[in-house]
């Protein structure tokens, strides 16, 4: 039996307009095609998980605090704020005293804990008796180098330079408390 298209439609396949012979031809075509090759590709990661980036920004941030040291809590606040355009704007506005109750609150990021550990291990920073994280001379030297290189961490440095000269722990605490 031959239909109007001139194709053999004696075998119905449930697909209008496709006959058995076409299926066979397609099957042959696929069988003849070279096999697909899947090769493993490494994972893409967010840039802020790159070790050089996180250690550098940590040193820059710590250097902005009075005495180059900060509690872990306040470090979290700055770590959170430095990482996106939105949070940077928000944080600067808060510092200006313009805070609105419906705004998102600071998120604590586990990657900071790891970053601090790395910095401690690498001798960039140390933990003081009170538990605060303080820059060591190597970390300070890195921060100074970073400030003098105009091509790196431009956004981050612009943001940090808009903060008050040296941030006190109390000012920050007040900033993030809702009452």
């Amino acid at each position, binding site marked *: 039996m031959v239909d109007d298209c001139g194709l053999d439609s004696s075998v119905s396949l449930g697909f209008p307009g496709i006959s058995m012979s076409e299926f066979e031809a397609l099957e042959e075509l696929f069988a003849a095609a070279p096999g697909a090759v899947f090769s*493993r*590709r*490494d*994972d*893409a*990661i*967010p*840039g*802020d*998980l*790159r*070790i*050089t*980036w996180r*250690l*550098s920004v940590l040193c820059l941030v710590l250097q902005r605090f009075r005495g180059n040291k900060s509690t872990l809590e306040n470090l979290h606040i700055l770590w959170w704020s430095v990482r*996106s*355009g939105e949070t940077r704007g928000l944080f600067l506005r808060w510092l200006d005293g313009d805070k609105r109750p419906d705004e998102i609150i600071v998120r604590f990021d*586990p*990657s900071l804990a*790891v970053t601090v550990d*790395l910095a401690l*291990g*690498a*001798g*960039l920073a140390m933990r003081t008796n009170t538990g605060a994280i303080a820059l060591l001379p*190597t*970390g300070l*030297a*890195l921060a100074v*180098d*970073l400030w003098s*290189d105009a*091509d*790196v*961490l*431009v*956004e981050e440095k612009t943001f940090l330079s808009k903060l008050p000269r040296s941030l006190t722990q109390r000012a920050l605490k007040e900033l993030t408390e809702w009452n």
Partner: protein
Amino acid sequence: MELKPRLILRAVRLSVGTAEGEVGRTVVFEQGLNVLRAGNTSGKSTTVQAIIYALGLEGMLSPKREVPLPHSMTDRVTVGGIDQIVVASSVSLEIENASGDIITATRQVKTAGLDSTVISVEFGPAVTDPGNFPTSDFFVRRSGAAQREKGFHFFLSNFLEWKLPQVTYMDGSEKPLYSECLFPFFYVEQKHGWSGLPPRIPTYLGIREVGKRSFEHVLGLDVFQRILMRQRLKSNIAEMEVAWRSVLSELQTIARTAGVTLRGEPRRISDSLDENFPIFTASLAGEWLPIELAIDQLRQAFVERAAQPVRKAEEQSSELEDELQRTEESVRSTLVALSLLMEERGVLADQERQLGLRLDALDEDLQRHKDSALLVRLGAKHVKSLAVDHVCPTCHQDVNDGFDISANVMTADENITFIERQRSTFSAAREDAVRALRSIQVREKSLRVTLAGLRRQVRQARDTLIGPSSAPSLADIAERAALQDQLDRLLENGKSLEIQRNELQSLALRHKEQTELLAGVAKSDLSDSDGEKLDMVERHLRRQLRRYGFDSLRPEDVEINRETYRPGHEGYELGFDLSASDMIRVIWSYLFSVLRVGEEQGGNHLGLLIFDEPKQQETAQESYRQLLHEAAEQGQRGSQIIIATSEERGSLIAMLAGTQYNLVDIPEGEKILAPIQT
């Protein structure tokens, strides 16, 4: 003909510092033939590779980013029979250009704290006659090395007065040809250089027909000029297309204000060749008529109306009621269409905003990866183990980037390309959304205009119907005013529409002319003088093949393929049909022929040829002797030839008898990297 080469290598100095003192050597080259003789594994290749390394050209050998020097320069070196760790190493190359200016380029191989992508240039003969010369740093092996002012290859091409031509890349962009693609004509490396027909031009840089472009540039073929011409025509054509587009959009604006639509609107510039298109049409009583016809009919209608008195409201009432109903129906359906359109616009606007946010986030992330790639340099100074070696300073296990979330992470460079690819996808999607939004806005605006007109009609019909029956029909008056208004607008804008249409046509005509010119240039290939140059290369090739005792084919049957510019036979590239030693003879002959023609006919050949161990595959002694003589003769003509060989000293001197040459002989048993007495 004594022609000064563009580049003369004056001296190269290798130095390696170890805890037990410094080893190294300075090799001084002269113009003409230089033979560097030393035993096997004594460091000849190191010396020659150091020249390439000092010029930052290792990219000609492979896309790898490794230092192309053996481990005696990077890792361990034998000093006085004892293995020593290499503490610091560098190479310096003193070169002279055709104007006699001398510079010395120094590049670190392995020195803590110093970057091997920096080449320090001293403006003087710092190797052969040290002194206090002004110094400047340039970078290599990073993007921009060939185009930015601080890039070494940019500096080098200026120094050599080597104007690197623009070539087309696989992605359609146009950038200068890389120096890495030209050096294979000047240097044959020992390990891979003799295994196939030269030049081995790197293809990983993504330049279209890179082999041909390089050859054309080296010999200054006119074909290159034609390609430039082609590029210029292409850019003219592109400019006209832009102009055409802007005239078309102006025309569309005028048409919109005049209430005129375009029929047969041109899509491509070539559509404008017909002066009758687009046809301007105006709507008259629900029908679209060509503008001239519309103007005539409007005039006529206007005259007819003016001849009759304004009708009274009652005369028109039944007619008006029907019309009111019809118009109200139209208002409703237009409103529906409009609200659908607004909904669609809302969705698209939202999509566009989301894509924008996504792009911002990608940009920020991209910047971080770029930063961290740069930061490795600074990190190397302060936190080397973490930043460079990726080893935890406390537990000494591997700590890779992003180990918090994955064990197999892309390198920063891979990640950058990955994000850039995403970026281009998203920005294409956003452009689409923006385009769709713009077209919706146009449609929306026109619907609103229609709606306002319909509403006015409704109002007037109502006013007339509820007004006193003996009053003049407002609808009738309004209709007259509308007629007058439409007629005025058409008359006013008809002229400027026509002017724009003529402008479109004249652009299209010029565009056609340029396109035809382009087709003409595209077809023609080699000019007469190109043909002569290729004939000469062929003659010199055959002459040398004969001289070196080539016998796989008759030398006169070997030709230079006019398509690929490479040696071939009956249209096929020479290859497997040759004996191994004949292949070597072809390589010698070909590169020397290109050098010879470049020297005689001008072009951009550097006048330099470096062969690292040209005696391969047990080449017959007599062939080798002839090669040395050919090299010496070419050296006499002004070129600089450097041949590194491990040929035994006595037989080498015998073969060189009767020629002028400079022999740098490293005695048997001695290494190139020998202790330096300070």
